[in-house]
């Protein structure tokens, strides 16, 4: 554990009894109380996550807009300042470098939030493609990031004290709002399938912001939540996770994220490869048989192996066990599949994603 990287909230996790694990080189809590209880808190009330391990890359300069337009699969032409946009970053062959969230400050200033374990790789990728009119800076260590998620998040923010605006629309952000007196970037985003915000503050302010939100959260019986619940929540909402649903060998088309790939925009890295028809696609499965299919389990149609499970777990809100699988496109329309688990074949029916969708 001593060799792992620590977020600014490390001591807070220890004090709250977090069960610390190695998550891609970071010491983070998998849970504080119980994954199921924390999952439920987010669906029904509110939960607070430390996501400070996420990477923050700043892209600035006169060439920032055309540069990012070339680096990203999504189209940022229609973005106005104050908007966030989900995008993929691809290799020339269409494989996925990472999935990122882009925050537009202006045509010359963008924040790109990347997956923790990809931060170095992404920074090198962006830097290697930088043009003279663009600066790319890795400012990950300067920020703490907290995710406040769940239907009662606004009550928690209000109880903590807000000076400034809270973004009203999904995928928008406010550059500076004080929460509990602490300056934060506040974005109406998340990775749980619930409404909520993500707050970015100076690393040194992270523990104070966490403490203030924990105190404020008492009014809705909020729980601090770990990576375990973060994973079951995103899984239920069928959100892909880098290293599972996608990686350098999987294209965004195969991950089923074609909405974030704009093939009609001018050139971008990976465009040519992504124009070719995909051979595989991500599907959703619900286990009919008892048992849990985990990542890497083989998926069969009769005797033919057609793919593998990318994520599999119980879906606590829905009940039952679900899986996401990457299967051959030609075999992606069957009603029932079999998944091999410890030498046995478990039947699973194809089901629509997202598995869970919150009522609006």
């Amino acid at each position, binding site marked *: 554990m001593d060799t792992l990287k620590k977020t600014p909230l490390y001591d807070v996790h220890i004090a709250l009894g977090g*069960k610390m694990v190695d998550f891609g080189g970071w010491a983070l809590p*998998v*849970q504080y109380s*119980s*994954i*199921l209880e924390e999952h439920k808190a987010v669906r029904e009330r509110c939960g607070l996550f430390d996501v400070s391990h996420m990477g923050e890359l700043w892209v600035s300069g006169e060439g920032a807009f055309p540069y990012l337009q070339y680096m990203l699969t999504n189209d940022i032409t229609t973005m106005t300042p104050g908007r966030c946009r989900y995008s993929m970053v691809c290799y020339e062959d269409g494989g996925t470098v990472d999935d990122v969230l882009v925050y537009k400050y202006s045509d010359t200033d963008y924040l790109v939030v990347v997956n923790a374990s990809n931060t170095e790789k992404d920074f090198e990728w962006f830097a290697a493609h930088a043009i003279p009119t663009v600066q790319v800076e890795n400012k990950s260590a300067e920020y703490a990031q907290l995710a406040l998620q769940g239907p009662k998040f606004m009550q928690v923010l209000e109880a903590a004290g807000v000076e400034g605006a809270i973004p009203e629309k999904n995928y928008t952000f406010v550059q500076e709002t004080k929460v509990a007196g602490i300056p934060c970037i506040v974005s109406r985003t998340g990775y749980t399938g619930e409404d909520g915000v993500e707050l970015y503050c100076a690393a040194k302010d992270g523990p104070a912001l966490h403490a203030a939100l924990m105190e404020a959260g008492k009014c809705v019986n909020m729980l601090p939540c770990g990576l*375990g619940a973060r*994973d*079951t929540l995103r899984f239920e909402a069928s959100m892909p996770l880098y290293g599972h649903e996608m990686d350098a060998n999987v294209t965004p088309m195969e991950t089923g994220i074609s909405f974030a790939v704009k093939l009609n925009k001018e050139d971008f890295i990976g465009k040519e490869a992504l124009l070719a028809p995909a051979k595989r696609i991500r599907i959703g499965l619900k286990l009919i048989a*008892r*048992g*849990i299919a*985990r990542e890497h389990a083989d998926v069969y149609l009769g005797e033919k192996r057609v793919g593998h499970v990318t994520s599999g*777990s*119980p879906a*606590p809100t829905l009940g039952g*066990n679900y899986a996401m699988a990457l299967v051959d496109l030609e075999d992606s329309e069957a009603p029932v599949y079999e998944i091999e688990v*410890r030498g046995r074949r478990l039947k699973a029916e194809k089901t629509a994603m997202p598995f869970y969708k919150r009522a609006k």
Partner: protein
Amino acid sequence: MTPNDRKYTKEHEWLLIEGNVAKIGITDHAQDALGDIVYVELPAVGDAVEAGASFAVVESVKAASEIYCAVSGKVVEINEALDGAPEEINNDPYGAFIAAVEFETLEGIELLTAEEYEAFVAEEN
């Protein structure tokens, strides 16, 4: 508290021995390390089991864990209640046995007392 009425293994299982039958479950330390248990794959009554081999699987939200049988013999009883309520292992680890095994011998099998097991866990941490 680790009950004194039974034996323990270094794989964090307990054996409550009566005559030549051992009820087998997992320790409080094991359930705590696993977290919320959501499924138990039980053996079948009549299954032959071998010392050191996996004979059941306990699944938490995050992962599947094999449960190893400390003794060789035959499964004579399973805790079917775990089918509908696997969380009983979290709630009552020393009450919720997984299966009972009729064994041939305890000779050559390393079993710890409660005190020895607690020392082993303390050392492991």
